[in-house]
């Protein structure tokens, strides 16, 4: 991999930027691979990268039915945080945030991480007590959290209207939380995985599995059958569909989660603001657009577009907290299909089919988990046993009752 650096940029500038090599190849699929990852989103690409880097795996392919990073990786609102309640989640998501902190160096690709702080608001005395409890749990998990008074909230976010329909009683902030650039995460992992020889095969949809005596041996795709010793799913909203092809059922509901951006304006909001009660979150991107969203549409959906009623609700919620934004025009609105589990925690690890692994159930919060998800799944695939950080996220927890009911998973309540 030819490194990106100040010198390489300067050299390319002199020669008119005509000498940049392609960031990744687009090879034809081979007949056989050691490992196939289905889904070239953040999780799939990260898994391939860590398999090659940490476990020395060769002959890895990442199959993608559309284009690389075109699913939820390119549709989320770029938020990274680890303000989780339960120790299992806190451990995992804080590890992920730590990996994000070094990711630009690790991948030699600027993911534009901006740890600008993530503020969660409370709108009643009782909710404030809930926030204190939540912040305490986070601190016990050895993660930073700081409870703020309404005055401190106003100082941090001057544009906010504290006396809105549900007056702001305070909140808490995780200062290490923030945003990064989602496309860069997908492209960075793709480029780094490619440098290790991983084949990223786009426009190649999996249509079925070859399973012999309970063991997966390959996949059928729109570009022919491909054999593999091990296969891992990283397909977000399509987890149920792929699981059905492999012959097992998962506790997943696919829903459309929408987000939207305003026209770009000058910098005015340097914190990520979330409100579970008013039901919205907002941040300002480096391009000046306000990125915001709220809950998911209430019914099952595989249509990558959101419903109008929820769009109106999201806009109304934003304007309730920030009346000053009412003159802005909405520039784009879109949706991604998220795979929501009953306890809002992910499904990771082994499946009932031998040599078939799963990383799914990420629901509305998979983006922040990409580095740790990739690293732990690579370990799991390589060793055929779950990494210690994800043991508790196994599929069998629904049978044993060891659910991880993570209300903090969504950040806003769903």
């Amino acid at each position: 991999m030819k490194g990106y650096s100040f010198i390489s940029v300067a050299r390319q500038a002199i020669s008119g930027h005509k000498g940049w090599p392609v960031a990744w190849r687009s090879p034809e699929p081979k007949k056989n691979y050691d490992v196939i990852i289905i889904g070239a989103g953040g999780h799939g690409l990260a898994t391939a990268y860590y398999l090659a880097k940490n476990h020395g795996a060769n002959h890895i392919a990442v199959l993608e039915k559309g284009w690389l990073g075109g699913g939820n990786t390119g549709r989320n609102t770029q938020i990274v945080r680890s303000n989780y309640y339960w120790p299992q989640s806190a451990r995992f998501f804080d590890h992920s945030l730590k990996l994000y902190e070094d990711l630009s160096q690790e991948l030699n690709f600027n993911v534009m991480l901006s740890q600008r702080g993530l503020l969660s608001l409370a709108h009643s005395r009782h909710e404030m007590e809930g926030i204190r409890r939540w912040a305490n749990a986070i601190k016990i998990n050895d993660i930073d959290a700081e409870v703020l008074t309404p005055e401190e909230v106003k100082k941090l976010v001057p544009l906010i209207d504290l006396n809105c329909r549900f007056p702001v009683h305070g909140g808490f902030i995780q200062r290490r939380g923030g945003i990064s650039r989602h496309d860069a995460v997908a492209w960075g992992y793709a480029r780094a995985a490619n440098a290790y020889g991983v084949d990223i095969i786009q426009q190649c949809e999996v249509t079925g599995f070859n399973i012999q005596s309970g063991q997966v041996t390959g996949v059928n795709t729109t570009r022919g059958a491909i054999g593999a010793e091990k296969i891992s799913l990283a397909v977000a909203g399509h987890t149920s569909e792929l699981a059905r092809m492999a012959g097992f059922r998962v506790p997943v509901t696919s829903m459309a989660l929408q987000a939207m951006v305003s026209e770009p304006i000058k910098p005015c909001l340097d914190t990520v603001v979330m409100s579970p009660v008013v039901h919205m979150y907002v941040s300002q991107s480096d391009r000046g657009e306000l990125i915001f969203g709220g809950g998911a549409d209430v019914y099952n959906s595989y249509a990558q577009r959101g419903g109008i009623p929820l769009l109106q609700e999201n806009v109304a919620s934003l304007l309730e907290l920030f009346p000053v934004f009412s003159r802005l025009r909405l520039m784009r609105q879109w949706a991604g299909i998220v795979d929501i589990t009953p306890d809002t925690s992910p499904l990771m690890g082994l499946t009932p089919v031998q040599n078939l692994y799963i990383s799914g159930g990420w629901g509305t919060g998979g983006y922040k988990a990409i580095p740790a998800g990739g690293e732990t799944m690579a370990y799991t695939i390589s060793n055929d046993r779950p990494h210690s950080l994800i043991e508790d996220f196994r599929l069998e927890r629904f049978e044993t009752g060891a659910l991880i009911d993570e209300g903090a998973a969504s950040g806003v309540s769903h």
Partner: protein
Amino acid sequence: MLRLNCPWCGSRDELEFSFGGESHLTRPMLDASDQEWTDYLFNRDNPKGIHLERWRHSYGCGQWFNIARDTVTHEIHSVYKMGLPRPILAAKEND
């Protein structure tokens, strides 16, 4: 915006309804295995395509009913009352 055809009140906006999830789930008997019970409680069909689901006209007559809806196009192929068996959709298209 979905328009749902309530069997009692006619075609109304999505906003008047509450979604009740997959229909035709049958509670297993008390001697069910852990696996059957888990399947009933948590596992869902979640198809990409026709989904049989329950809705309630919460801000109208308050009645529950079933629909068959395509989860990609959101087209509603059938509306039928609670307690009725799964609709045979191919037959409906021939009507």
